[in-house]
């Protein structure tokens, strides 16, 4: 009704009731400035926003160690050519909690989004036994160097079928894997992807190693992401900050598997880091912000100079405020 009223034109010129004008003034209500009876959440000023989103206030899904499998990679093994590294991946359709109280009908490898971390050392023989228990055809497409028949593009694995991927792991670096059945946009967005690390012949220096897969979820099917996360749960590392020690070498294997949006990014507060694009060379950039398109990945290395709480997040503010943010808890 209100719309209807304002739509009508007001012809200010024809006001036959001259006497009415001063009277009408009386009717104009002055803006009431009543005290708000607000039931504020216990924290402070409303402008606190995400600064207030720390600890138990954070609407993140899962418990304290729920994302450990996605965060902490299996240990690197020394170089031994021809050694077989075997993994089993099963495609399952499953509801996953992507933000507190919000479920998403995902297609997963082994029941999680992202899927398990696959790790090998250069010249290992990688063997991945894939079983499709989902309702749709799937594959695993690995990034890296491998024969055409192991590429996971033409060898479609139908529901109920299995396939074994076998190829020597190379080159070293941070890679990724994902389903490559069309529509690819859908198969990736639904959750079929994960991190794939190949360690160099010469071992990397010992470090506190972390994996971060950046992603998004379009939970209502409108082609836009409703939530953004690292490793699957919105705001997860804001609720459960990642504990590291001051001065220790921290190595982050970072990948972007966000669908729909052109890019994603990683920004760390209060610190600079060495960023090795793809992690396959010694070339690095010294920065605090990196930008990745889908499928791009790299390795971050740093030592925290200061103890305390340091935020990390996408430097697309929208992604940050839709879940892609967290904290490092740096102790002495």
């Amino acid at each position: 009704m209100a719309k209807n009223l304002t739509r009508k034109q007001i012809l200010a010129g024809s006001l036959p009731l001259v006497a009415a004008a001063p009277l009408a003034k009386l009717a104009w209500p002055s803006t009431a400035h009543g005290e708000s009876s607000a039931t504020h959440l216990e924290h402070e000023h409303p402008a606190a926003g995400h600064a207030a989103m720390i600890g138990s206030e954070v609407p993140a899904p899962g418990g304290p160690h729920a994302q450990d499998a996605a965060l902490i990679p299996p240990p690197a093994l020394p170089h031994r050519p021809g050694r077989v590294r075997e993994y089993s991946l099963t495609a399952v359709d499953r509801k996953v909690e992507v933000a507190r109280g919000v479920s998403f009908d995902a297609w997963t490898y082994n029941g999680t989004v992202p899927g398990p971390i696959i790790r090998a050392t250069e010249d290992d023989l990688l063997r991945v036994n894939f079983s499709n228990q989902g309702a749709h055809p799937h594959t695993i497409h690995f990034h890296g160097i491998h024969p055409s028949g192991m590429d996971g593009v033409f060898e479609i694995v139908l529901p109920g079928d299995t396939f074994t991927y076998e190829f020597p792991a190379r080159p070293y670096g941070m890679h990724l894997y994902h389903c490559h059945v069309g529509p690819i946009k859908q198969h990736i967005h639904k959750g079929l992807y994960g991190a794939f690390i190949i360690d160099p012949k010469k071992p990397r220096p010992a470090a506190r190693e972390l994996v971060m897969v950046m992603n998004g979820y379009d939970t209502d099917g409108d082609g836009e992401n409703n939530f953004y996360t690292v490793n699957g749960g919105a705001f997860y590392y804001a609720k459960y900050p990642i504990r590291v020690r001051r001065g220790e070498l921290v190595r982050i294997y970072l990948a972007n598997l966000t669908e729909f949006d052109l890019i994603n990014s990683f920004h760390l507060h209060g610190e600079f880091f060495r960023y090795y694009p793809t992690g396959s060379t010694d070339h690095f950039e010294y920065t605090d912000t990196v930008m990745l398109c889908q499928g791009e990945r790299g390795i971050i290395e740093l030592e925290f100079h200061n103890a305390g709480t340091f935020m990390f997040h996408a430097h697309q503010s929208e992604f940050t405020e839709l879940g892609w943010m967290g904290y490092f808890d740096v102790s002495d």
Partner: protein
Amino acid sequence: MASSSLATRLGGAHWRLWALVPIAALVGAIALFVSTGGSLLELVGQGPPPRDELDVRRVAFRPGEIKVRVTNPQRESITIASVTVNDAIVPFSVDGDPTLGRLRSATIVVPYDWVDGEPVSVGVTSSTGVQTTEDVAAAVETPQASARGFLGYALIGLLVGVLPIALGLAWLPSLRRASPSWLAAFMALTAGLLTFLALEALAEAFELQAGLPSGVGGLGVVLLGVVSTYLLLTFLSRRLSGGEAAGGLALATLVAVGIGLHNLGEGLAIGTSFAIGELALGTFFVVGFMVHNVTEGLGIAAPIAERGRVSLRRLAVLALIAGAPAIPGAWLGGFVTSDVLGVLFFAGAAGAALEVVVEVARYIARKAPGGLSSGHALGGFLAGIAVMYVTGLLV
């Protein structure tokens, strides 16, 4: 004799009991259908999954806080899981259970430092991930129920309702000097303006009901509103005129009631518009309504023009009946804002106005020289609609 009357009585009871049989059979059939677990429906395919979209009833702005009133319009329950303001997830609290059953409502409170006059987009996401978004064109502090605001709305109601009608009634002495033909013309003018009001109210009712959640059954509310006031006024008119067709003061009272119901809806519309900050040109808006409503006073005056003296008190009462409902209307609109109530009010106004048009037409047919088809009656009717149209442009 006694036994036969007993048999009749028993027989009567028997047939009354028989009337319950179809109802009992229906209950049984439904129970059977439900207990089979809807397996019958599976024969013809599965229903689509629930949409899980909420109905945002109202977004209110208070200093440092946004309040969102939502209703679950579907059969399956919906759980509020996440809230965004301008595409950012925000902390929030819900008054009561965040899981809403069918047609259940809840208020979401978000502490938020909103910017005055800037657009705000509020998103409420269900546990199934479906986001309902409500865009507010400009954030403006929502008025709260205060003595000041109460007085303000009362003044608005007085200005757009009572005052112009009282002014319109002041045409009464001039009307008394009019010839019977001209009086008929003015009566027809009353009918014309009431027809205009009825159509306007009906359009408002339809527009509002279209925005209601389907579970409320908007069309039913409209029909119920129209018919119930129409019948109520028919009953009232028989009462006032002692069984005959209404004329004179009785007819004037009916006209006043019809206009009063319309002004209740009008007050509601004005109050709501002020409350949600859509009335940037509030002063002109009020003036427009005043001009529009002066004609309504004329409509009430016409039926009593041919009578002898009417006391000032009577006239004051008539002005109040017709104009005062704008005041509670404005209060309701300003502080409560219920679209269901709005539909009911506008539909009721339409029904009342239509009934009064019928009464006025009867009166003209009976009393006016030349009846309904006289030039004066036809011209007056047309003029009534034209006058309402032209003054309506002011609003």
